[in-house]
């Protein structure tokens, strides 16, 4: 609805040169956006440029030296096995999370869309971890997943010797993924539920009359119709998964070995444990580029989605 050239204040006549009233309106506009614009400049744009600038420097905090080093930090990244491991860990985490999260969210949404008794209560159950504090939720799961914790305790009463979930190479990342899935799957479930409810009743009805069973109707009608939402939710989940930090810090501390040291955790360690601010800045730039590419894909997807809807 906005043509950027149209003049403001419909109460007055449109003229070529802005009158005093229009100028006053502009002034109000600038005043209203000033806090946000200045804040975005000071706390987003300037730091973004600064981090890129830092990444070109060799920065020794203890000796207090800050020397231009060109692309040395980026060369170092290419050769750094720790960084490679953390990229692999992030990839493993993101893919595992998106697969589990999206399929469970879809299952829950489909179940809640059946008009079964108690649906509202179940929806509350599934959504409640979303509002729980992330660190709190993670602490409780950490307690459950301890070697002598609740889950292995219950398994022991069944005569099963459970593994040390958070310390085992094979299970640690899986545990982190599962904890994160239960934390946030309720949000995606709501998005899917909204998409499911927008599938027209008549199409389902027509297919039923044609003799299509429930599974067939789901696969041939529902799934294609909500596939744009599935794609969008998947990308949002991946972007969010790259920022995982507190869960790693509380559950595994990046271990065992560095099997759960994801990119952000690696960045944190380089900066605030080893004081490698220059190198950490280069890792930050890498993180930014990855998130940027994914977000642009997401925007592209959404544009197409909106286009399809119209």
């Amino acid at each position, binding site marked *: *609805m906005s043509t*950027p050239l149209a003049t*403001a204040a419909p*109460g007055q006549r449109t003229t070529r040169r802005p009158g005093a009233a229009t100028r006053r309106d*502009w002034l*109000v*506009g*600038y005043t*209203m956006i000033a806090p946000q*614009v200045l804040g*975005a400049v000071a*706390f*987003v*744009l300037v*730091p973004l440029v*600064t*981090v890129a600038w830092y990444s070109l420097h060799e920065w020794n905090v203890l000796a207090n030296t800050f020397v231009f080093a060109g692309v040395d930090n980026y060369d170092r990244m290419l050769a750094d096995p720790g960084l490679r491991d953390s990229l692999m860990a992030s990839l493993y985490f993101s893919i595992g999370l998106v697969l589990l999260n999206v399929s469970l969210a879809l299952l*829950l949404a489909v*179940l809640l869309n*059946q008009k079964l*008794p108690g649906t509202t209560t179940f929806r509350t*159950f*599934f*959504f*409640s*971890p979303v*509002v*729980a*504090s*992330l*660190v709190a*939720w993670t*602490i*409780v799961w950490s*307690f*459950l997943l301890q070697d*002598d*914790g*609740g889950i292995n*305790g*219950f398994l022991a*009463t069944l005569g099963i010797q459970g593994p040390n979930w958070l310390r085992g190479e094979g299970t640690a990342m899986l545990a982190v993924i599962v904890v994160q899935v*239960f934390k946030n799957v309720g*949000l995606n479930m*709501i998005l899917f539920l*909204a998409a499911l409810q927008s599938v027209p009743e008549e199409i389902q009805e027509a297919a039923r009359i044609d*003799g299509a*069973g*429930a599974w067939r109707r789901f696969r041939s009608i529902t799934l294609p119709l909500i596939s744009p939402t599935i794609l969008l939710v998947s990308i*949002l989940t991946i972007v969010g998964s790259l*920022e995982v930090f*507190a869960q790693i*810090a509380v559950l595994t501390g990046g271990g065992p070995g560095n099997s759960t040291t994801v990119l952000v955790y690696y960045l944190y360690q380089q*900066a605030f444990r080893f004081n490698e*601010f220059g190198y950490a*800045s280069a890792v*930050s*730039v890498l993180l*930014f580029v990855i*998130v940027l590419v994914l977000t642009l894909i997401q925007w592209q997807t959404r544009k197409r989605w909106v286009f399809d809807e119209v």
Partner: protein
Amino acid sequence: MRSDVHPAPVVAPTAGDALPGDGDAPTPSAGLPGPGSARRRRRLTRGLLVALLIVLSVPFVFPTWWMVSSSLKPMSEILRIPPTVVPQDVSWAAYADVFRLQPFAQQYWNSLYIAVAVTLGTILVASMAGYAFARIRFPGANALFVLVLVGLLVPSEVTIVPLFRMVNSLGLIDTHWPLVVIPIFGAPSVLATFIMRQFFLGLPRELEEAGRMDGLGRWGIFWRIAFPLASPAVAAVAIFTFLKSWNLYLEPIVYLSSRENFTLPQALTQYVDAYGGPMWNVQLAATTLTVLPVLVVFLLAQRQFVQGLAHSGLKG
């Protein structure tokens, strides 16, 4: 075993199935069954689906129950095998320890006042900016809006190093200033500005016209008419902003170093014994005190929470 989930009564669907199940058994292949057996089969399927929902609820509900029940157990019981779902002898000692071992009340207050300040500040900054970007036409509006939107592209982790240096050079390390000021004006409020702008774009202009007729200026129209009408969007912004601040973890551990200044998520991880092992019952008692109030508010205002968070999830 998991006693907190009561099987919901499996009631037969009311009103003779005006809402036919998508949960029918897959194939109606083998001839046409009689009407009675079809209904029985449908009832069975629905019963099974409810049972499935109950099983699926366990990992969502049980941790909360386990947190509360374990926080009430003495150390001797907390790791007992077989585990006790309900505490055998209830002990409140852990709750006393929560306050004895750390300035927990102070930390609670820190989290609360920071989250409230960030929420109020964000509502103010974002609704003003959102209104101006949606309603007032001034030169450069589009360019400035794009500039602000860059904030949506930058995860807070990317700028943590330069922001830490900035805060450090201003001498504000180990103060709450960075936790209050940066979210209000920086990247976190950009999403709020975006949501407010979307809302004001959809608000009928006629509503403002009436105010103009009554002689209200731009500010008057914003404060008296547009802002009050925006309460659904403000509620959404308030909920996700509050929760985001309340749950913040990376920033506090980077900026804060003394216990009196800690926020809750940070404080929760500090209940460890002399060997660095977690004191589970104390930690879980503190966790319970952190989680339950938010959970109660959520149960009271569920609709707003679900809508508000789904909003932020989609627009993010």
